[in-house]
C-alpha cells in the first residue's frame, strides 16, 4: 500500500482486532521514532475511525547525514549534589556537568512518590535546552541556557523516580548537538545510575542527522 497524492492511506472493509507494527518507508525519509505503531479496534479500543481526522504520521525529510562525534557514559553517581564532570566528545576537555540530588538520601520505599530530586545539567561555556521534539535532527538556533534544572517532589504531577530526557546542546566552540540522559533517581542505596549519550556536529552545522 502507498500513500496517495495527499499523503493519505486507509484501511477499510475488513474485520479484526488490531493493527500492529505499522511501518512507513520512503527513501530519503525517516519515520518518527515516537510514532504510535499499534492501534486496537476491538476490546480496549484505543482508536476510533474518523475519515475527517486521520492519524498523522510524521516523517523527517533528510537533508543528508553529516559525520557526528560524541560520547557516552554509564555509571554510578552520588546524589548528594556533588558535580560530575564529563566530556561531551570523547577525548576532549570536560565540558559537561551533571549534579544529582535526592532528598532524603536514604528513603523508605512506599507505593507512591517518596523523595524529592533535583537534576542539573550544564555545558561549560555553552548551553543546553530540553526538548520533546519528535525528531532531534536539527538543533535550534537559540534558546540555550548555561544550565537546566529538573526538580520534582512528591505530589508534583508527572512525578516519576528519575529523569529520561533529551536535550539540545551547544558547546563552547559553537558546535551543536544533542544528548539523551537517563537517571534512575530511585536506586537504593545510592549511588544512583546515570546514562548519557551525546552526538555533536563538529562542523558547526545544526544538522544532527545520523
Amino acid at each position: 500500500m502507498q500513500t496517495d497524492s495527499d499523503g493519505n492511506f486507509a484501511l477499510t472493509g475488513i474485520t479484526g482486532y488490531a493493527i500492529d507494527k505499522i511501518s512507513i518507508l520512503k527513501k530519503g525519509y525517516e519515520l518518527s521514532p515516537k510514532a504510535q505503531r499499534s492501534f486496537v479496534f476491538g476490546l480496549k479500543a484505543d482508536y476510533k475511525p474518523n475519515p475527517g481526522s486521520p492519524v498523522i504520521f510524521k516523517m523527517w525529510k533528510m537533508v543528508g547525514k553529516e559525520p557526528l562525534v560524541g560520547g557516552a557514559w554509564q555509571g554510578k553517581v552520588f546524589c548528594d549534589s556533588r558535580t560530575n564532570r564529563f566530556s561531551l566528545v570523547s577525548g576532549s576537555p570536560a565540558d559537561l556537568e551533571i549534579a544529582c540530588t535526592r532528598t532524603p538520601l536514604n528513603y523508605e520505599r512506599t507505593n507512591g512518590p517518596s523523595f524529592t530530586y533535583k537534576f542539573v545539567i550544564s555545558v561549560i561555556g555553552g548551553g543546553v535546552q530540553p526538548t520533546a521534539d519528535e525528531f532531534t535532527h536539527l538543533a535550534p538556533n537559540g534558546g540555550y541556557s548555561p544550565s537546566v534544572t529538573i526538580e520534582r517532589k512528591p505530589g508534583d504531577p508527572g512525578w516519576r523516580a528519575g529523569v529520561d530526557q533529551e536535550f539540545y546542546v551547544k558547546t563552547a566552540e559553537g558546535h551543536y548537538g544533542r544528548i539523551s540522559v537517563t537517571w534512575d533517581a530511585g536506586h537504593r542505596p545510592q549511588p544512583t545510575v546515570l546514562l548519557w549519550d551525546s552526538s555533536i556536529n563538529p562542523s558547526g552545522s545544526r544538522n544532527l542527522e545520523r
Partner: protein
Amino acid sequence: MKIICLRDKIIAATAVLFLIVVSGIAQLRVSENVPVGFYAKVLDQDGNPVTEARVTFDFIMSYMAENRTKTSEVVLQTCKRILMGTSR
C-alpha cells in the same frame, strides 16, 4: 437403574454446561473482532504530504484465538490490493 439414570443426567448436565461455556467464549471472540476503518496521513517536518510512501503492517485478525497468525489478502481503500502477514 436409578443410579444409571442419575449418572446419565449428570453427564448430560455437564455436557450442556460445557456447550454454554464454549458458546460464550465464541461469542466473546466475535464481539472483540470489529469492522476496521483506519485513516491516516503522512506529513514531513514542514507539514507537506509524503506521497508514495510504502505502508505495511501486521494485522491481528482474531483476538483470543490460539493461533493469531493469519495471512490474508484484503481490498484497501487507497490502493488496489495488499498481502498482509499477521503476527503471533
